[in-house]
């Protein structure tokens, strides 16, 4: 249990405590009300991996007065916390929960709400598997007695009991196949379920006929066992199906519902965005999103333009500058003149792009579906041919029918039905243990095919957030005062200071935020100023180029806070690894050219595109696809979301904007970028195993089918052949478990080359 002794990680984590934590509003919005003043929040904690982690986290959370219950789920790496909305009359800040988890040395994120809400179909499928398992075990017991020589009346009795067990099972557990087969036939198509439904119905009918006429062979065991194996495959497959995603709706949430419109004689009227016309003047206060594209008439502020260019550093704006819809006004109130209606503005354009971008997901046909397309007509034809053939040979309808049923049962895609999902479930499990969440099984198939990786810069290659780098050098009291002031601002640098400080005492006095400059507080001790050097100390000082913030008291420098946006861990190594895997890499950034060029040089990427709009990124993906390339897009921002959809397959970090997380096929939960080559490698392995499994399943058919056609397949032979082939396929899939190393575990030790070794060997 010493694997995660909290002390060792604490030291590393303390200086970035609070970075990337979800905001209070987000936590409130995503929490579920349980009634009685209680709310429940589910947080993803990718770092938990043993009993000590459970005890640490639950202990820490339960020690907080507002926490009612806390329970860690180690399998899904989540913690669900039930907390009181109010404590002693004060509203609870749910951010404290996340901060508590972070203080213990664990990363934590929100996962997209509704991602895994109680899956009803899955539960039904598992129940159906249980029933089919029960039925097949009992029928098998009876069948073994028959095969060992039960005669006459005993045999008939056993057959009848088998029939009584099989019939309800067919209805209860078989309904999934019947429903799906019927659905396909109704639309004039055929799928894997058509031969399945036909085989179980025919084999059950013929067995019933045999039972009534005191025949020797009944296929009840084969029928139900078939159902059992196929349902296992179906259940696993269902677990890997991508769920419908609501990327567009979460984007729509960013769009403000209305804005304060100023008319010519100074009147104010709140109007919905759709009714705002170009030329009208709007008052936007700090903390609001800009509703439509426009130009600033009065005022200055800092604007979070991450939706446009993906950059987290806010851009100062003043009168005359143009602003885009969806950007966030951080510091000061401004008056803007609308230059476009809501439906023509940037946010609407991004939503349009998202809808238009079909991407690999829609075009791609899953391997299993492609196999089924050839498989089911072949099987039908084969069964029909053997029936006709035997009719010609001896004209015995009964015998010909028995042979046809045997062919249908033997060829039934048991192993084929398991071939893909077993591998994908194991691969997804491996990926999850290494901190990568797979949203859709077909994404792994697509990821195995890529030849180009395009990465976003800020937030993907870099951590994307300013981080206080000299926290240790600053006196704790100075840091606390700065944090108290910073609490009044939404500026990212202020938030970084606030996050880094453990205590933020309330600063009493007159506090105001000066847009584009900083925060000023008039207190008894004097005038505190937190902001740029020019603002805080009154002199320009030496411009270091690096982002910095100064806290001053009456113009005296108390402390200088330095920030930087660091590279993600393993960024460079991961890019090299991608090169070794034979993939070409490129950067697609919304940032300015020199910045992108410098970073590209640092991580060793030759090709890059800068100053791209969201549409530009989509076009780059489309151009690559046109050139015959298959692209993996890795990005995090809202501006990347359309490109994430347009690319063949996509990946986003867990710190990404909600829209980005929703749009991506994979989400990596740990900080390190080495999740990208690891996921590609695992997907390629999975692809190889799937092909091997197909080969095994086809090889089995090549041997078994002639036996069935020649009429030598008794129920015993069919049962043995079916279970052996399924077991072989599953055993082959299990090899994936042994083959992949645990990258995340090693990455935690901070040994870059060692962490990447398992991936390197694999290529």
């Amino acid at each position, binding site marked *: 249990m010493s694997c995660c002794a909290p002390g060792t990680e604490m030291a590393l984590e303390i200086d970035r405590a609070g970075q990337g934590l979800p905001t209070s509003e987000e936590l409130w919005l995503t929490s579920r009300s349980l009634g009685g003043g209680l709310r429940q929040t589910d947080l993803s904690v990718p770092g938990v991996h043993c009993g000590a982690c459970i005890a640490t986290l639950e202990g820490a959370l339960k020690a907080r007065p507002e926490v009612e219950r806390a329970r860690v*789920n180690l*399998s899904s790496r989540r913690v669900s916390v039930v907390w009181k909305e109010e404590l002693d009359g004060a509203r609870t800040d749910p951010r404290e929960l996340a901060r508590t988890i972070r203080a213990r040395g664990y990363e934590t994120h929100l996962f997209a709400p509704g991602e895994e809400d109680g899956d009803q179909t899955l539960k039904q499928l598992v129940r159906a598997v*249980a*029933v089919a398992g029960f039925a097949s075990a009992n029928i098998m017991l009876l069948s073994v007695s028959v095969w060992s020589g039960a005669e006459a009346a*005993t045999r008939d009795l056993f057959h009848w009991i088998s029939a009584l*067990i099989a019939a309800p099972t067919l209805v209860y557990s078989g309904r999934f196949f019947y429903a799906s087969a019927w659905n396909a036939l109704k639309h004039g198509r055929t799928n894997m379920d058509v031969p399945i439904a036909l085989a179980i119905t025919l084999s059950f009918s013929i067995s019933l006929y045999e039972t009534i006429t005191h025949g020797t062979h009944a296929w009840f065991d084969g029928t139900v066992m078939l159902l059992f194996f196929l349902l296992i495959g179906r259940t696993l497959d269902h677990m890997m199906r991508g769920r419908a995603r609501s990327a567009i709706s979460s984007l729509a949430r960013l769009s403000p519902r209305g804005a304060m419109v100023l008319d010519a004689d100074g009147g104010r009227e709140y109007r919905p965005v759709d009714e705002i016309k170009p030329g009208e003047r709007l008052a936007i206060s700090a903390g609001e999103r800009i509703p439509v594209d426009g130009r600033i008439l009065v005022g200055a502020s800092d604007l979070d333009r991450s939706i446009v260019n993906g950059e987290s550093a806010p851009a100062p704006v003043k009168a005359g500058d143009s602003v885009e819809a969806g950007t966030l006004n951080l510091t000061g109130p401004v008056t803007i003149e609308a230059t476009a209606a809501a439906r023509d503005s940037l946010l609407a354009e991004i939503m349009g792009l998202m809808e238009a971008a079909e991407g690999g997901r829609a075009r791609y046909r899953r391997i299993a579906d492609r196999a089924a397309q050839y498989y089911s007509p072949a099987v039908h034809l084969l069964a029909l041919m053997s029936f006709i053939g035997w009719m010609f040979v001896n004209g015995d309808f009964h015998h010909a029918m028995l042979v046809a049923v045997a062919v249908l049962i033997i060829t039934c895609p048991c192993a084929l039905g398991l071939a893909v999902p077993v591998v994908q479930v194991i691969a997804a499990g491996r990926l999850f243990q290494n901190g990568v969440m797979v949203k859709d099984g077909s994404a792994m198939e697509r990821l195995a095919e890529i030849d180009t990786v395009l990465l976003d810069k800020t937030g993907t290659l870099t951590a994307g957030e300013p981080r206080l780098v000299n926290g240790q050098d600053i006196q704790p009291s100075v840091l606390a005062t700065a944090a108290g002031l910073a609490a009044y601002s939404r500026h990212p640098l202020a938030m970084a200071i606030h996050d880094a400080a453990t205590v933020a005492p309330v600063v009493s006095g007159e506090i105001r935020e000066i847009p584009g400059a900083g925060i000023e507080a008039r207190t008894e001790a004097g005038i505190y100023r937190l902001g740029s050097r020019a603002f805080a100390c009154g002199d320009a000082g030496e411009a270091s180029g690096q982002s910095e913030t100064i806290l001053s008291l009456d113009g005296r420098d108390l402390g200088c806070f330095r920030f930087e946006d660091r590279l993600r861990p393993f960024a460079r190594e991961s890019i090299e690894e991608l090169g070794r895997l034979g993939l070409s890499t490129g950067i697609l950034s919304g940032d300015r050219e020199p910045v992108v060029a410098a970073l590209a040089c640092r991580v060793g990427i030759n090709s890059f595109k800068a100053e791209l709009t969201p549409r530009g990124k989509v076009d780059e993906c489309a151009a690559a696809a046109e050139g015959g390339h298959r692209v993996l897009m890795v990005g995090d921002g809202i501006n990347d979301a359309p490109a994430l959809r347009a690319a063949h397959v996509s990946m986003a970090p867990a710190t990404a904007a909600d829209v980005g997380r929703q749009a991506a096929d994979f989400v990596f939960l740990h900080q390190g970028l080495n999740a990208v080559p690891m996921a590609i490698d695992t997907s390629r392995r999975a692809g190889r195993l799937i092909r091997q499994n197909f080969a095994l399943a086809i090889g089995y058919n090549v041997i078994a089918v002639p036996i069935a056609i020649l009429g030598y397949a008794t129920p015993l032979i069919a049962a043995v052949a079916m279970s052996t082939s399924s077991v072989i396929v599953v055993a082959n899939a299990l090899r994936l478990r042994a083959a992949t190393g645990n990258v995340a575990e090693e990455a935690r030790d901070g040994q870059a080359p060692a962490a990447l070794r398992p991936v390197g060997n694999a290529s």
Partner: protein
Amino acid sequence: MNTLIYLIPIALFLGGIGLVAFLWALKSGQYEDLEGASWRVLDDGDGKPEKK
């Protein structure tokens, strides 16, 4: 042959108990966190029931 009259119902009944037990376990969330449960066994706790 006569013993079958007892044995078959007994076999089915026992199998049925297994099935019902599984369905119950599924419904009551016993399979929600298999990994966590294996660790929780080792957690001594403080011997007191969890606070409500």
